[in-house]
């Protein structure tokens, strides 16, 4: 039984091999027709509608990126300029501050100098006054010392029983003071 079936299958197979499906001509017109229709449709839809749109999207993206980069470069330049301006104004402010400080210092120095001079003058004056007074007092004191010495000398001489004139005593005392 089997050999018969196998033989039948083989026969069917041989028949099939004779009409190899891709080369079976009955479907050629249909294949050609549908290929032309479908390939043509795909070509028209792609070339008229889809591809130009994708192309314009890509172009738009490219130009957007380029303009964004330009904008970024411009803003960067602006930022650099602004930084420079800030630096300049900071330097100016520094200079002005220094100037003001210098001026103030000069003024204060001057005031200090005048005040010092004034105080010095007063002190000098007071010192001079004090010195005059001291020398006056000293002279006075010296005067007194002379009197006392003359008195003492007169009394000493009186004890010895001799007398001397005032003028002599005074002269002697003076000499003694000057020598001593």
């Amino acid at each position: 039984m089997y050999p018969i079936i196998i033989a039948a299958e083989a026969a069917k197979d041989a028949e099939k091999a004779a009409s190899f499906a891709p080369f079976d001509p009955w479907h050629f017109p249909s294949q050609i027709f549908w290929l032309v229709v479908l390939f043509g449709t795909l070509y028209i839809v792609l070339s008229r509608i889809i591809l130009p749109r994708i192309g314009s999207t890509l172009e738009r993206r490219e130009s957007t990126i380029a303009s964004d980069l330009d904008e970024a470069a411009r803003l960067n330049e602006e930022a650099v300029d602004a930084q420079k301006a800030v630096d300049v104004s900071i330097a100016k402010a520094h200079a002005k501050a220094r100037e003001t400080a210098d001026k103030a210092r000069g003024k204060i120095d001057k005031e200090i100098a005048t005040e010092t001079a004034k105080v010095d003058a007063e002190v000098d004056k007071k010192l001079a006054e004090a010195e005059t007074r001291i020398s006056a007092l000293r002279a006075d004191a010296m005067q007194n010392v002379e009197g006392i010495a003359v008195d003492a000398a007169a009394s000493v001489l009186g004890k010895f029983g001799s007398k001397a004139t005032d003028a002599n005593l005074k002269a002697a005392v003076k000499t003694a003071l000057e020598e001593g």
Partner: protein
Amino acid sequence: MNLFFYGAADPMKQFEVQKWFELPPLFGYDISFTNAAGFMLLGVVLCIAFFGYAASRGKIVPNRLQSMGEIGYGFVADMIRGTAGEEGLRFFPFVFTLFFFILFANLIGMSPYAFTTTSHLIVTGLLALLVISIVVVFGLWKNGLKFFGLFAPSLGDMPILGKLVIYAILIPIEVISFIARPLTLSLRLFANMLAGHILLKLFAGFAVTGITAGGIGLVVAPLAFGMGVALNALEFLVAGLQAYVFAILTCVYLNDALHPSH
């Protein structure tokens, strides 16, 4: 024994064209809507849907699907620029349609039970003929008779006798290679898709019959199954590669039409 599988696993069955709808004949020719036309329509619809989405979204910042569509656009544009130069871009819509028509057909064919439209020589042959017709017509229109310089490259300074001898050998070779172009272009795609799908079906069939036969078949079946898996991966590569080869050879031939001097 196992004759049930014998019929189901017939590796040629997948290439059979079956009518889905009868249509009235056009000029006496049967143009019924077949499974071949159906899967071709599916490829075209998917292609339009995919790129239509990318085109209609059109945002400056793309999402993944839009980005994929745009990468496809850039890929084909770069392919043309690389082989045919900037002037080649006038054929951009044609090469783009050709590449993605074939790619979608090949990839849809990788799905089980699907029909592979590119596994029929009538389809690939017509596409190749279209390419060569465009090359010849455009080449003649743009370059006039200089287009035939394609067959006789300039030899520079040489005695006239030497030139004659070289041309006598060279021109027939060039003419034959030009005529062979549509044949090789169509046969390459057709044979690759046909052979790949036959192999896939054969190894899958071995796996099934091996298991049902038992005995040594139980050893063969896993090997055949593993081979089928490996071939499946290879066929995906072939599906992409053959679409690419078809498109890039189209660009090369178009380059000849644009710049006929070698």
